[in-house]
């Protein structure tokens, strides 16, 4: 078994991963984690802080050894193909966690490797463990996902996490409200696929209004997406989540962000009880431990 795309998962499998993660959370609290044997190879062909480190930390906490691949110091520089690299690394490890800028890279790796492959992001396509930890965070903090109103705010078009998140929110029966700058809306085919698959309707709004939001999921608006610098500055200001916005929302609002955040959430918000993005990042540990465990135990 591999974990390549959230699209491959059914609700039962997601629930199973959550169950293992909850169990691991309890083990982590007791500082007594059931150990596994083996070696994980981390192959990150592009930069990553949270995903790579949390995969490595998860593997080590499970008792696995980690071997790391540094793309800029590898035989890729000599022109070795991607599939040859994967076949070689496959002989050195029991599980592979990887990120690659090309879409579908993890799928192709899974086809050529015998070891299970965990996708830590493939271009603009999928980032399934991020979606799992996002849903896990919502469920942990709110006790449920179904019926919650989740506001997705920012550049929804280019944020890889959004593509599978709307799919996951649909799977668990959440309501989705989208607020994106003009031209940076979530692509129609992604909305259509999730709505059709899970028989729900997502709402689009022109401006941020958090009165009815249970969860606010923010992603960065990148200046380089705009040709007009004035327009970029205007939109960035408009899509900055100020403390005033938060105060107008529900008291138990949960603010999430896949990180890194730059200036879309000012530092004053970090101290507010609604800000849960660092807790969300920490949940990468039990979720990724659960995924590694599930894949290694088959």
């Amino acid at each position, binding site marked *: 078994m591999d974990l390549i*795309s959230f*699209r491959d998962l059914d609700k039962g499998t997601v629930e199973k991963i959550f169950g293992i993660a909850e169990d691991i959370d309890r083990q982590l609290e007791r500082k007594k984690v059931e150990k596994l044997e083996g070696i994980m190879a981390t192959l990150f062909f592009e930069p990553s802080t949270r995903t790579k480190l949390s995969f490595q930390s998860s593997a080590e906490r499970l008792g696995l050894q980690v071997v790391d691949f540094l793309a800029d110091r590898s035989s890729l520089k000599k022109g070795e*193909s*991607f*599939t040859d690299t994967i076949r070689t690394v496959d002989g050195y490890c029991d599980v592979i966690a990887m990120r*690659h*800028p*090309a*879409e*579908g*890279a993890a*799928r*192709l790796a899974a086809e050529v490797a015998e070891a299970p492959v965990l996708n830590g992001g*493939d*271009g*603009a*396509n*999928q980032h399934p463990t991020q979606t799992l930890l996002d849903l896990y965070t919502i469920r942990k903090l709110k006790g449920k996902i179904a019926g919650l109103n989740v506001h997705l705010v920012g550049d929804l078009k280019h944020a890889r996490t959004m593509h599978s998140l709307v799919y996951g929110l649909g799977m668990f029966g959440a309501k989705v409200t989208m607020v994106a700058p003009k031209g940076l809306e979530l692509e129609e*085919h992604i909305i259509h696929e999730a709505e059709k698959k899970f028989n729900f309707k997502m709402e689009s709004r022109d401006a941020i209004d958090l009165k009815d939001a249970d969860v606010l999921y923010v992603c960065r608006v990148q200046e380089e997406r705009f040709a007009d610098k004035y327009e970029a500055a205007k939109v960035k200001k408009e899509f900055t989540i100020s403390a005033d916005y938060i105060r107008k929302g529900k008291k138990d609002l949960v603010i999430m962000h896949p990180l890194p955040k730059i200036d879309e959430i000012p530092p004053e918000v970090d101290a507010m009880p609604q800000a849960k993005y660092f807790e969300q990042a920490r949940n990468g540990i039990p979720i990724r431990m659960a995924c590694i465990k599930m894949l290694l135990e088959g």
Partner: protein
Amino acid sequence: MLKVDIIEHGTVVDHVQAGMGKKVLDILGIDEKSGNRVALVMNVPSQKMGKKDIVKVEGILISKEKTDAIALISPRATVDLIKDGKVVEKMQAELPESLHGVGKCPNPNCISTQEKAPGKFHLEGQKYRCGYCERTFKPVELL
């Protein structure tokens, strides 16, 4: 109307969307080196289609799989297999549920494009989803 010789043993692909006849030859793997006698008639008046192309190839009887691959560029195409001057089988091109090694993902950032891996696609409604980058495309975009 242009007259083209009847064929004794081979394949006639009819109701090909006008302008797509050359692509049919590509799908069938026929080029100047193949040595087959080939007739490609373009922009033939058609009651159903307005204009259509017709392809006749002597010496090859094409499979249902190839017939269905033609549906990617011409969903109304029909195929007649000819033996001893008689039609022995008629086939209607239908979009295949899945494609392996037929078609190429048009997404330049798809790993199948970068690594020259054989394309794999599955049909969702009237579009194909790439088995690698997971994007969907119109059938004609794959060729």
